[in-house]
């Protein structure tokens, strides 16, 4: 029988190369520290990828986005893709955790791409640690958070936008979903929805390094996650 492991994390990434890469790198670092890691991606992605040369003992598990044959390319629209993914993805992740619960090393924690806040719902249902991983920069996350809280009003009419910890921004420095409001509204909703349950996450990780975005990390009082926490305490 396999030796009981130190801890076991499921790492659930959003099905795009730019999202899978950083979470896979985080997985390798965790594995290096002795944690068992199981990366999770969609069946479509798992079939589409070309394996690289890295040797790793990490074994992949899959969930379904509801489009196993063609991924988002087979969906009628972004909205229908996300709607179905959010339903089928949650269900199949739920099944996966259930399946692994009978193994020698049951899951302790779900690290989920913040794009998919339902990862936290599954973690909480099974009493697991839930950790959100933001793949974008801390500054970008902060901008979306300020929009989510209504602290940046849309449409943006100012010529200069001030966000704590960020340099003064011109409208065209903002993410395109805000600057060109109305383009890809369903993706934009998803980006704001990242914060819908963040106050219940046990950990929040950001794909960055401290010295790179020191000012965003160090903005006292109005720091976005602190604000988020204090708001949830008030409610």
């Amino acid at each position: 029988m396999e030796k009981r492991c130190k801890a076991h994390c499921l790492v659930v990434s959003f099905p795009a190369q730019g999202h899978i890469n950083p979470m896979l790198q985080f997985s390798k670092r965790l594995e290096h520290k002795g944690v068992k890691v199981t990366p999770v991606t969609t069946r479509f992605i798992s079939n589409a990828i070309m394996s690289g040369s890295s040797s790793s003992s990490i074994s992949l598990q899959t969930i379904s986005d509801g489009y196993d044959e063609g991924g988002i390319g087979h969906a009628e629209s972004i909205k229908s893709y996300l709607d179905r993914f959010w339903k089928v993805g949650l269900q199949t992740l739920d099944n996966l955790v259930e399946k692994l619960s009978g193994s020698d090393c049951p899951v302790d924690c779900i690290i989920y791409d913040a794009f998919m806040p339902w990862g936290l719902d599954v973690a909480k249902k099974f009493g697991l640690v839930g950790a959100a991983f933001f793949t974008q920069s801390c500054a970008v996350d902060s901008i979306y958070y300020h929009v989510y809280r209504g602290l940046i009003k849309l449409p943006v009419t100012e010529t200069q936008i001030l966000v704590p910890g960020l340099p003064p921004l011109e409208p065209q420095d903002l993410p395109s979903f805000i600057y060109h409001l109305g383009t890809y509204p369903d993706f934009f909703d998803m980006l704001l929805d990242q914060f819908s349950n963040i106050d219940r996450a046990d950990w929040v990780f950001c794909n960055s390094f401290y010295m790179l975005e020191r000012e965003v990390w160090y903005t006292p009082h109005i720091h976005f996650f602190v604000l988020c926490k204090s708001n949830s305490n008030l409610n």
Partner: protein
Amino acid sequence: MADWFAKLWPFRSIGPTIPSMYLDKQLENDRDYGFSFFMQNNDVCMNWLNDRAKGSVVHVSFGSLVDLKAEQMEELAWGLKRSDCYFLWVVRASEESKMSKDFAEESSAKGLVVRWCSQLEVLAHEAVGCFVTHCGWNSSLEALSLGVPMVAMPQRTDQSTNAKYITDVWNMGVKAAVDEKEIARRETIESCIREILEGEKGKEIKRNASKWKELAKEAVEEGGSSDKNIDEFVANLVLSRSSC
């Protein structure tokens, strides 16, 4: 103040999330991300780069998802041609139809056009002196970690904000200004490339780039910010397992 934050909210940086062998070398087998959606032929790129002088090549890539406007593609091709530099340009198969038919052939003395490559290997090559990028977050982190100056050509999503940081906060590149149609014109692209490869600004950025390269490595090294955050997280996981 750091402790005060730590107690308030478990918000931690992890990264840079690029393979260890390009940074701290703690994970000996970690040379690439481990998978790709695209077939790549790195030998062709590496052999071609090996024949170029240090810092002389412009690497051009818009990542795995961006669809350039055909007009932008043409301006970029002209910009590269006018700059008269060596270039390695990644044009995904789905983007090839936007490129003028004879461009790759006509410019073969100066440039290599490939469908995909291992960007890390290319950026880490000493021949590469400039990176024309869409400023996707992973590409930005790779260039920062490997100390390669950038020409920022953001197209959509978070790329515009990343471009702002690359130019104005990190001083790691210049931004190719766009016109009212949101196209960066050939003259602009040419002058940005020249600024990086030949100008005073390029020298300043190169000095700055070595600082970021060092800080990126420090973050993931034993005892660095990312390493400590991961240790803390793992210790907590082990603790919560033993307490239940």
